[in-house]
């Protein structure tokens, strides 16, 4: 299994914006809505190329979700764009009733998720969104890890019928997934093989998990790294296969411990194959202002913390 190298440093939101433009050219059903954050969401190119299929709704996210639901009735595939906090918590009941309960084919595309939006601080740093969205029946939840994967995920959700929450971020981060890598919704990617511990990571922390894997190798520990880009539906088969081999787990995500990827995996394992699980996640706290890397370190979400968690998980076997 070849090592992953940094191709370049890019923001995941640009992967979304570039794919949206591609979809505009290839899929006439795709329309887009934005709540006054077109530049931040990298939706400008789509808006300029397809002005009739782009709807600027102003700072009115609830209305945006309802309009998106209505557009699906007429046969369109709406992609809504705003920050993750305003894509979820602010409009939870609109999503619940008009989109999820009504089975509408809306793609809720959310940038600036997690701590790594940085200096804006906790008002904008949602760490609860995965939990809220995965609780909605029928909702697919995807948190890609880099530019290339976000681009692939954006293209994939257009082909998937049903509501989707697609979560990505603000900062430029390592882009390392080869652009020809296979992406299938609900299919986890094994990035490194190992036998002592399974590290299940999502979003920006996948790169940190790969860094942690190298550090663990130097300590003589063989870690398996699996990228769970789709948190719901969860790839139970791949997870159980890995855990049956390694016997312990570390989960890594830029999200609250409550309700995140770690909880989904712990629930699966509690029912099917109980083993020690260590969470790398934010533990019942709000974020704060700071640089993205400083914040990941401060809240215990970087590679050294994943290494420590692996040590604890192995010790509990």
């Amino acid at each position, binding site marked *: 299994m070849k090592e992953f190298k940094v191709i370049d440093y890019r923001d995941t939101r640009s992967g979304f914006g570039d794919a949206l433009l591609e979809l505009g050219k290839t899929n006439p059903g795709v329309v887009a809505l934005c709540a006054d954050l077109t530049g931040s969401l990298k939706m400008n190119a789509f808006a300029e190329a397809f002005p009739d299929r782009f709807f600027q709704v102003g700072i009115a996210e609830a*209305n945006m*979700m309802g309009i998106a*639901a209505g557009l699906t*009735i*007429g046969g369109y595939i709406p992609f809504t764009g705003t920050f993750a906090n305003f894509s979820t918590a602010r409009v939870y009941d609109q999503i619940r009733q*008009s989109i999820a309960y*009504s089975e509408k084919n809306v793609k809720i595309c959310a940038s600036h998720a997690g701590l790594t939006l940085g200096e804006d601080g906790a008002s904008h740093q949602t760490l609860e969104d995965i939990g809220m969205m995965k609780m909605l029946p029928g909702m697919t939840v995807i948190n890609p890890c880099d530019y290339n994967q976000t681009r692939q995920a954006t293209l994939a959700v257009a082909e998937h019928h049903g509501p989707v929450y697609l979560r990505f971020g603000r900062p430029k981060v390592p882009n390392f997934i080869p652009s020809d890598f296979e992406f299938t919704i609900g299919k986890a990617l094994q990035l490194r093989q190992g036998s002592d511990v399974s590290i299940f990571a999502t979003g920006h922390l996948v790169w940190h998990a790969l860094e942690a894997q190298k550090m663990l190798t130097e300590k003589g520990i063989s870690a398996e790294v699996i990228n769970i880009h789709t948190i719901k539906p969860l790839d139970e088969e791949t997870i159980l296969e890995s855990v049956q081999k390694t016997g312990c787990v570390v989960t890594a995500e830029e999200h609250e411990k409550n309700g995140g990827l770690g909880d989904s995996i712990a629930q699966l394992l509690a029912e099917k194959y109980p083993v020690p699980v260590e969470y790398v996640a934010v533990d019942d706290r709000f974020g704060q202002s700071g640089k993205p890397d400083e914040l990941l370190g401060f809240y215990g979400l970087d590679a050294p913390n994943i290494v420590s968690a692996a040590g604890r998980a192995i010790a509990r076997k």
Partner: protein
Amino acid sequence: MPEINKLKRIASQIRRDIIRMVHGAGSGHPGGSLGCADFLTAMYFDILDHNPSAFKPDAIGEDLLVVSNGHISPVLYSALARSGYFPVEELSTFRKLNSRLQGHPATLEKLPGIRIATGSLGQGLSVSIGIALAKKLNSDPKTVYCFMGDGELDEGQVWEAVTYAGAKKTDNLVAVVDYNKKQIDGPTDEVMPLLDLRAKFEAFGWKVIEMNGNSMEDVIARMQEAKSCLGNQQAVMVLMHTEMGAGVDFMTGTHKWHGVAPNDEQAANALSQLEETLGDF
């Protein structure tokens, strides 16, 4: 006007259905349902250009009505069944386990005539705008109608939608407000005064029409007027003055029948005031 008389007779049966459904379920919202029975009758039997026997979820090539105030489901279900969307006998399953007739309208059960779940208030106008935008993209000349309660106007999302449709000139959309001036906790003037609704909507850029929602003649005339105003760079708002509980004397003049089912005696009294014109379900 024989056509008007026919519509009035249908409305009488729909009012009977409302009483019998809510009484049968032991729960539901008779007051608002009775108040807008004339309007729903006019819409499904005259105003809408639609095809009830071949329900199309996408509504392409058809008019449609989005009922945002989902708690008036009894009158909606009766109007849908009586106009041919689904069998009239199914009205007896209202609010019962495994029914397609949920307490508030839902799509999961695939009930013909329902395209969006409503009930949590304030969301239907946004959805209606979305459908209207899709119709424009599809070059579909048909009309989107949205029905809302007046108490529902307390919701902030309604004003986001009113802002959008006014500012962006969604001129294939007619919104109708059931202006009965009552909500659950009491008169709107006490709970949350609506102030000058006409001036408010006009300030947001809408064409405003007022209508007596309990006069079939006025409903038909004013809704035709609303239709004639479409395609003119303005969304159209109809302020429909109604009496909650209209048709049943002891249910009018009070907000108490917003969400209460009649007992056996009250149901019998109500039904004695409403002529059975099409046969009870």
